[in-house]
Structure formats: C-alpha cells, structure tokens
C-alpha cells in the first residue's frame, strides 16, 4: 500500500469518527423533550462529515 492511499484512508476514518462524535449528545427524557437532538451540529454537520469520510474511502481504495 503506498503512502498516498493510506493517508487518504486514515483521513477518511478520522472524518467518520469526528462525525460520530459530533452526532452524539443528550437525548429526550420522560420529563422533557430535548430540541437539541435536532441541532444543526447533530443532524447536519455530523452526517455530512461521516458521509464525506465514507466516500473518501472509495477514493483511497481506488488510489492503490
């Protein structure tokens, strides 16, 4: 595996991991509905990072 491909794969995995971290957060409970579960960080930015990561992996594999 040459460096170029490996670097891309590592970056992609980091993107995915960061995406999941940003997606994480407190939830609704029986006491209260938590509007933060639909905050832009959790349902816009996070999934975009994850998706970018998953697509970048394809690039990384093809670069081999």
């Amino acid at each position, binding site marked *: 595996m040459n460096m170029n491909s490996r670097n891309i794969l590592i970056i992609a995995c980091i993107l995915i991991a960061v995406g999941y971290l940003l997606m994480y957060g407190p*939830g609704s409970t029986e006491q209260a509905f938590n509007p933060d579960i639909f905050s832009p960080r959790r349902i816009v930015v996070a*999934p975009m990072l994850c998706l970018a990561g998953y697509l970048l992996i394809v690039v990384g594999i093809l670069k081999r």
Partner: protein
Amino acid sequence: MAWLTFAIAAVVYGLTVEPTASLWDCPEFIVCGYKLEVGHPPGAPFFMLVANLFSQLASNPSQVALMVNLLSALLSAGCILFLFLTITHLVRKLTLLFTHHFSLPQVITIEACGLVGALAYTFSDTFWFSAVEAEVYAFSSFLTAMMFWLILKWEDEADSPRSDRWIILIAYITGLSIGVHLLCLLCLPAMVFVVWFRKPNLIKRLARRRRRLVKLSLTCLLMFFVGFSSYGVILIRANACPPMCENEPKTVPTLGRYLSREQYGQTPLYPRIYSMRHAEAYEDWLGDIEIRDGEPTKAENLRFFLSYQVNFMYWRYFLWNFVGRQNNILGYGEVEHGNWITGIRWIDRQLLGCDTSKLPSDLKDNKGRNVFYGLPLLLGLLGIVWQWRRGREGRRQLWIVSLLFVMTGLAIVVYLNQTPMQPRERDYAYVGSFYAFAIWIGMGTAAVIETLSRKLKARQPVAAAAVGSTICLLVPLQMVSQTWDDHDRSGRYTCRDFGRNYLMTLQDEGHPIIFTNGDNDTFPLWYNHEVEGVRRDTRDCNLEYLQTDWYIDQMKRPAYDSPSLPISWRHEDYREGKREYVLIRPELKGEVMAFVQQHPVEAKDLLGDNPFELKNIISHWVLSEQEEMQCIPTDSVTVTSDKGTMVISLKGKPYLLKNELMVLEMLSHADWERPLYTSVTLGSDNLSFLRNHLVVEGLACRVSPDNDGQQVDVERLYDNVMHRYRYGGLSTKGIYVDEDVKRMANTHQLIMGVLIDTLLQQGDNQRALSVCRKWQREMPQENVPYTESALAMARCFYLNNLPQQGDDIVSGLLRRSSEWLSWIDTITPSRRAGSGYSRRIWLQTMEQALAVAAQFKRTTIYQQYIHEYEQS
C-alpha cells in the same frame, strides 16, 4: 453513449418524480434521512446519510421530500448507466472473440445493445415505481448494478497486480450496502462463478503468493467492517430518543435484534404452508388441502410453492415487466385484478377465461393497464440464445448472468416463504432479477442484427446494423408509451395532504391524541409532524406498536409541543412478556358484588369505591402483583366524571391486549381534558369497545363520554371538510390516481357523504349543496370515480331541484354497475367464484342507485336498469 442513457433516465425520472412524500414506508424514510430518526428494522443508516445530504438542498421543509425522491431518481439513473456499461462490456467481449479489431457495424451493434437493454429497463414497471419515491430500492438497485459491474471489471483485470483494489472496493461496498438493504448482497454469488471460471490462473497466482492472499483477505475484512460501521448512526441516534425511534436499538444487543429483524418473527424454509394465522387464506388459494398427521402433505406444500409463491408472486411480476400488466389493482388471483396479460386478445382470453372485448370501462381505462405484446420477453429470450451460442466465453457469461437472475429472483421467493393475502404487491423485491433479464434484452439486439446481416448475406453490414438497432429500439419506445401514464406522479400531493388532514381533524385545544393502525394512516402523519412541523401539539399513537414496551416508553415522553401521553404504568408493568393480554372474567362479577355487600369496609380498601370503575380495575386488578388477580372482573366497565358516566361494554370479548389496556389506561387518566381520537381507517376489529362512544368529526372520531352510539358533530365535520382539509391536487387534470390514493380519496368521500346526508336530515340543503360543489371541484369523477358514497350527492341535488345533476350521478353508477355485472357473466364458470366480491359490490351499488332513482321518481333511469337488476 453511456451518459446519454443516464441523462435520459434522469430526465424521465425527474419529470415523473412525486413532488412530496409517497405512501407506505416513504414518509418514514424521509424522516430518517432529514432528521436522522430511527426507522423500521433492519434500518438503513447509509441511506440516511446520503438522504440527509440531499435534504440539505431543500430551500424549505416542504421541499425535503422532493429532494429525497430526486436522490432515488438519480441513483436509478446511475443504475441505468451501469446497466449500459455492463451490457456493452459483455457484448464487446463476445464480439472480440471472432475478430481482433472493431468494424463500424460491430460498434453500432455493441452500442445499440447497451441502449436497448438500458432503456427497456428504464421504462419497465417495477424499476420505475421505485425510482420516483423515497425508498431504499432505488439505492439498492444502484449498488447491485455497481457491484456487478465491479465484479466484471475485476474479472477483466484479474491477472494484473492492481486488480486487488477492485476486490477491496467490492468488500467495502458490501459492508456499506448492508446499511442500505440486504438485497445488494445477492449479486455476490456471481463473484464465486467468476472465481470458478478463472480458477486455473488464480490458483497458480495464489500458490505463488500465499502471504499476499492473507494480507488481502484481512484488508477486505477490515474494509467490510468499516463499511458496516455506518450502523453507528442508528446506535447514536437511538440514544438521542427522537420521537420516531422504532424498536429503540440503544444498546449493542438490541441493535443485534434490530438487525436480525426479530420483530417480524422467524419464517421457516419448510414447510411452505406454515402460518397458523393464514390457515384460511391457504385454503382459499389451494382449495381442499390434503392433510396427513395434522400437517399438509409434501405434495400440497409443493403445490402451494409452485402455484402461489413461484407462479403468482414471482413470474406474474416478471411478466408484468416484460409482457404486460392488466391493471394496478391489488390482485389475489381474481380474473379482474392485477394479472399479467399480453395485449393480444385471443391469448388473453385463454389466460383469463373471460371476454376481454367487453371489459368494463373502469378496467379498460385503468392507467396501470400496460401491454407490450411480449416483445421485451422475446428480445430477452433471443439474447439468451445469442449469448449461449457464443462459444465457451458466451456460456460462462450466461452462467454468471443467470446466477444473478436466480439469486435476486427465485432465491428470494424461496427465502421469503410468503403467505397468501399480502397487503400490497411485492414486485419491488425482485428488481435485481429484472435487471439481469434486461442484460439479455440488450443482447437480443445483437441477435436481431446478426439475423438481418445473414439475410442480407453481409452485403451491407452497416445498413443491417442500423436497421436492426432501430427495430429493437422500438421495443423500449413502445414500453414507455404504455408505462408513462401510470408512473407519472408529478403534481400529486395526496400522501402529504391526507396525512395532514388526519391531524387537522383534531381539535385545537387540549393536545389531542389520535390512534391509528395501518402504514398509510400512520407514516404520513409522522411525516407531517417531523418534516413539515404540522400540528406538533398533537400525537399519533399507532396501535400495532402500542403492543410493544419500547413504543409505550416513547409515548411516555413528550414530543415537541405534545406532552407525555397519560400513562402511569411503570416500565416493569408493561415489559415484554408481561400483561401481553389480560382475561375478561364476567363470572367474577357476582363474587365481587357479594364481597362488597358483606364486607363494605374491606372492599373499599381492596377494590376502591366502585369496584367496576376503570381506574379501580386497572390499579386493583390489572396492575396487581398477584398474577391470578390480573384480569378484568366484569364485562361492563364504567368511567365516571363530571361529564357523566360512560359505560364501556366488553361483552363477548375474551381478553384485552396490551395495546387495548393502554388505550383504557389513557382514557382513565385523560379525564376528558385531553381529547382522544380514533382514525376512521382503524378497521372494525380495533377498539371495537369504543364504538358506541364515538363522534365523527372528519377522518377521526373523538371518544366521548356519551353512550348514545355513533354521533356526528356536523359543525366540526363541515369546518374540516370545507376549510381545514386539502385534497392533494386531485383536481388536477390527468393526475395519476393509483389504487392506494383512490382508497384514501374514497375515505374522504365517505365522510363527505355522511356530512351531506346529515345536513340534509337537518334540512340544511344549502350547506349540503356547497359540500357537493366542494367534492366535485376537489375530487372530480374523472380522477376519482364515484362510489356509492356519491349517492348522497345525488339525493342532495334532487332535493335542491337539480334533477339533471342527480341523474348524472345515478345513471353513471348504474351504467358502470351494469358494465361490471355483464362482464363478470362472461368469465368462465370455473373462475367466476373469485369475482364474487366484485359482483357483490357492484350489485349493491346498483341496488342503492336504483333505490335513489325510485325515491325521487326518476322513472326512465329506473326502468332502464331494474330489469337487469332483477335478473342478476
């Protein structure tokens, strides 16, 4: 050329895409994508990520559904692109066998094969259906097509050192595709064949480099799991407890159960007749079933497998796509519903056993009626023969494509082991095998061109290729001339609007709750809540889910502006396996009364003031720690409040299910402060004990403390129908109304009929007339044909001295009934029994229309049909 097919498909699907959510699971998938909520098992996390990206392109929430639908359209066009590449790749290889350089006619042939095959698939029924709505099937078709193409690509390069990357990519996409739909995995067995055919070379290579093989396998495994890791979305989002969170897969074990679709139960591979619940349905299908030792015999199992599962639930769908489809009406084997036909009259007469020239206009004009005269099938069969005769390489290809065809078709039939009486047509599950067949349709073009050039004795090979291509191109063009009108969903907003209407029925005060039951009266409501933000003060509570502990948990949480539902039970009280049902034991009533009389003080302590009061029954009996106490000791339960005493009769009911107990629990705590509604589409079996306490207000009925039987709240009903409801663009000329949309429109018409009749009873002819006008404006009969509900309109017209308009309705219904009844008489006696239901319905319509004609003395119309009615 490949991009041309992509462009054609993208434009066609873009023009016919539904502009908002569609029925069945689509609203749910849109919510999954847009707000990352958790849908039904086994989930589609990678679909969610991609759909989420597309939903960001929407300028406002009402555009979100369109964007997700467009994702399906684009992915389907991508699938067509790969189909073109696959066909041309295969044909090019088979052409190369005989020459070493391409001549012009050969180039034309190869491109024409790709074009014809790709377009035939573009315009085929099943694939197009999934291409214009937000489902996972378009995505899974795309991934399947891509994987199959990658496998061929890898086969091509298998000997080069860089070929490994294709295998790794396939492994990765396999992992990802589980996050879309398991169907995608079914093209992998084709890879085994490729390896098999390449065996000599591969073994040589592998023997040389064993270490490399180990390394490659590990890399593949790793990439598979990286792809599979998209399930993190489900796990993380389930822990956020969004309002929609099916099965709540919050932990790894629950996620495992979610993935294995445990909710749906296990289906055995054998016997084929296995479901006790469907005993009657099996018998309806098979006639008498031979039983030995209490089980249907092997022969009967085989008969069911072949006649129903293989023939009716697979080949029928296959033939719809490549021969012709009778209509879009859900079929259970009757002569008049959803069969495959050819369009050639004498063949169809043999197939169906009826006189097809006398079809009632309802069936003749059905947009779902598509006839291809079997041409695509013929072309495909020619393609198979052509491929077979291309030497060893041709036969290898044939094996690989056949494997794809069987794995994505008949193998699924074997695996699913479907029971009769499916609630909808299941053709969408088999698109993969139709894809494989489209490859052969493409090759059929090569066969036609070859035959032509042989006829011309190779004098003008270019002309032969050009003429042959043109002839074959007519096949997909003929297909689209048939399939366009029943796949064009543009201008249709019915799913969104009808879902919204359910919510708008509920009164504005008190945070109402509506109980629903099916897919199509639940998911559209969720869509309106979650995506468009309609009536977030209300709550939809699905009775089927209410049987599960995770859903009750969710109902106990507030969602948006809707407070928790009034449920006081603790999680332990309704945990899975606990109080799934509770017996009703009226025989205990006497004992209880005796006990109360003899020991009034203890009784009050133990059973409460009134032992048959709902609250007391729940707290002292149902929630009792002693299991023998967990029952309902009466068949007549009372709910007392300052609004009066409601008496709920449970007579004849042996037990109450957990969901029914939950409804009663809510009723006891709602105190008539929080309105409870039941959807009119609930079905008569559900919550039947509330039947005498309902007030019709529109698409939902409010539960009321009165005991006077079903009431109509005219003012609210009028306001809803006239001012608060929307009708989904059904007034648009030429809009496509399929059976499901029609059924929902009929539900609206049913309550409009009730409204008109009630207004007429009150002597309010003027307002009744304006309801009629509204109906005719919003749902004109060209789009939604009248049913017997429309007779209310006829009565209204007659009473308002508009006899002509009344006659239009009555005589229209009579004419259609008469067409149906006389056509049903042409069905061969052996198959006529299946049409008994249609016959009863139309006979009833005729009877009621005649009654209206007689009531208002429309003698000419009456005389015209009474004779026919009396004879039927």
